[in-house]
């Protein structure tokens, strides 16, 4: 519903101008699915610092200095408690007022605080060790099993010795003892002080993966996960379409950010008449550009659009375009054209020529106007 213009991408789907990118080599508009993404760099959403990839991998894609609250996942702040005369640093959440004092995490200096938090994470290590031990056992087993397998294939007849050997190799399975485990009593359940909000919910448990505590006071502050800066490339010619800045403070004037809005005219609907639509074409570039509208029933000649240049203000073309008759009116860098319509959907093809530096680029697209 609503009135809007959609551009057809090569993959067959339609998108508005805001959703598309532009590839200079293929001179084609690209939708989100026609660009391949790659991770370029990592940064922390709190301290805004860029993390080199090797450091990110060492810390499991998490920030080393910022932590998140185990209850509400907002970034934790380091708070200072000066009351007892001695400085005590601890973590606190400004949103839900959780603090790390409940876990006993505090320190007299910032370093001490961070160190005490690190010891909390050694809980992960036993699991990691267990996994490594399993891996080693299986590697050894694999070598041994391979030897056994090949030996069997080599011989065709089993001798008695072979049989005895393989039987003696089998591990005997001992019967296991079943000790009845202690369960809670109904009385204890009836009289226990059950606080619903002290129990962790599934998201909190899944953040604290190694321990998955059932009570909130067991949950620890996890380091903040990093965010990624991703570059996008055209699927066909593999040229960069968007390349992000690595450094947080430097804003590159020559940044690669080829969004379609910067190069292609925006089409707006000004007026819907009974048998026509008045469309406004806005020129986003800073030099005079040319367009042709095909397959509409109007004369198919070139129309020029003026442009706004950042330095020289309005840039007008010399002389008028060949198809001036089609143009209804001109305003600054816009052109209004009336197109005949028969239904609430309008399709037409467009050829757009704009210049970038000394080159002139020509783009063909199909446009679909919705009018409801």
């Amino acid at each position: 519903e609503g009135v809007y213009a959609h551009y057809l991408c090569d993959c067959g789907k339609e998108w508005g101008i805001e959703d598309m990118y532009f590839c200079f080599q293929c001179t084609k508009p690209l939708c989100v699915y026609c660009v391949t993404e790659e991770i370029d760099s990592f940064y922390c959403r709190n301290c805004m610092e860029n993390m080199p990839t090797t450091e990110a991998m060492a810390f499991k894609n998490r920030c080393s200095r910022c932590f998140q609250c185990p209850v509400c996942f907002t970034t934790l702040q380091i708070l200072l408690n000066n009351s007892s005369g001695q400085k005590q640093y601890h973590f606190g959440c400004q949103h839900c007022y959780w603090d790390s004092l409940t876990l006993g995490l505090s320190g007299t200096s910032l370093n001490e605080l961070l160190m005490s938090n690190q010891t909390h994470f050694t809980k992960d290590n036993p699991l990691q060790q267990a996994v490594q031990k399993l891996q080693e056992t299986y590697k050894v087993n694999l070598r041994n099993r391979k030897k056994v397998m090949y030996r069997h294939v080599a011989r065709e007849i089993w001798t008695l010795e072979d049989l005895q050997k393989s039987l003696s190799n089998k591990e005997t399975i001992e019967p296991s003892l079943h000790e009845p485990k202690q369960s809670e009593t109904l009385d204890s359940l009836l009289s226990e002080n059950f606080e619903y909000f002290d129990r962790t919910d599934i998201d909190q448990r899944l953040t604290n993966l190694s321990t998955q505590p059932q009570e909130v006071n067991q949950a620890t502050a996890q380091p903040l996960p990093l965010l990624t800066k991703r570059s996008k490339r055209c699927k066909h010619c593999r040229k960069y379409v968007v390349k992000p800045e690595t450094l947080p403070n430097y804003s590159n004037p020559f940044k690669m950010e080829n969004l379609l809005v910067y190069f292609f005219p925006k089409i707006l609907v000004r007026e819907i008449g009974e048998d026509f639509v008045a469309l406004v074409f806005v020129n986003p570039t800073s030099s005079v550009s040319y367009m042709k509208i095909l397959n509409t029933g109007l004369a198919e000649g070139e129309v020029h659009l003026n442009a706004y240049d950042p330095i020289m203000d309005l840039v007008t073309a010399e002389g008028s375009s060949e198809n001036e008759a089609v143009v209804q009116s001109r305003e600054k860098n816009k052109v209004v054209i009336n197109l005949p319509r028969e239904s609430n959907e309008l399709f037409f093809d467009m050829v757009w020529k704009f210049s970038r530096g000394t080159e002139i680029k020509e783009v063909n697209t199909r446009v679909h106007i919705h009018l409801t």
Partner: protein
Amino acid sequence: DEEAVVVEIGTAYTKCGYSGEALPRSVVKTPSALSNPELNESEFYDVLRDFLNIIYFHKVQSRPKEGATVLCENLMASRKLLEAAVKVMFEDLQVPIVYLVMENSLPVYTSGGYTGLVVDSGFTDARVLPIFEGIPIVNSYQSMDCGLKKVLECMKTKLELDNDQAVEDILVKMGKVSFGELRKELQERKEDRDYYVVPKGSGTRVKVSLRQRFTPEEVMFGDYDSNQHNIAAGVLKSLLKCDIDTRKGLINNIILCGGGSMIPGFQERFEEELLNLLDDEDFSKLKGLKDFMRVVESPYPRNLLNW
């Protein structure tokens, strides 16, 4: 880095991370559209494309081009879903190699051996798969309709709640399974207790009774004699289908995994039920195995075992 990305797309949750690490990097909810068996391949493709994009670029934060991917598939999941997932990986994300592994055949390796009985209490159903010397015995695969989905539906009707998220919240925070003394007491005594809670996702107070907390056990360990579903019975049925020589090794290495096994009291009740059922007539052939039953204890969180 040379580590492969491991992705397990479960019905309710998807776990993703790197191989060689102890824990997955991230556990996210699987989009509900993926559990709909009616979808055709291109619809799966669209949903999966967005979802796998999030997994690779936001959760695992890997460069899919630079390493292999291990995809854990579910035996009973729609084939189209698997094909669409592989298509997304090869075409969209340009993964060079994809390894497909069968979901329930892997937890055996956490016990240090090659033989075991994997009991997965998942969302859609509870599954039992015996594995002997590394090879899954697919003929003896048992599936019982006591998944967490059913538990949630049961609780929904009992609590008269319509809100899915609220019911899941209550199950997570309050669900329990009784065993031993508590079980006897619950049957003999009639006392009850009401809790008034405000679950996440609902703004209103909900009344939950003590008995209702034990809903999971009604669904998962129903009364075998009256033909209700029972996970322990499923295990024994599966054993009956196995070769007689393999049974000892299998029952000695029972591995519980899946989200349902995280409910407090699950393991103890499972052992109890198994031992009791071995006395039952139907399973008289297996009675001799009673002494050898052993459920593997592991420090590893059960719901991540498949990953």
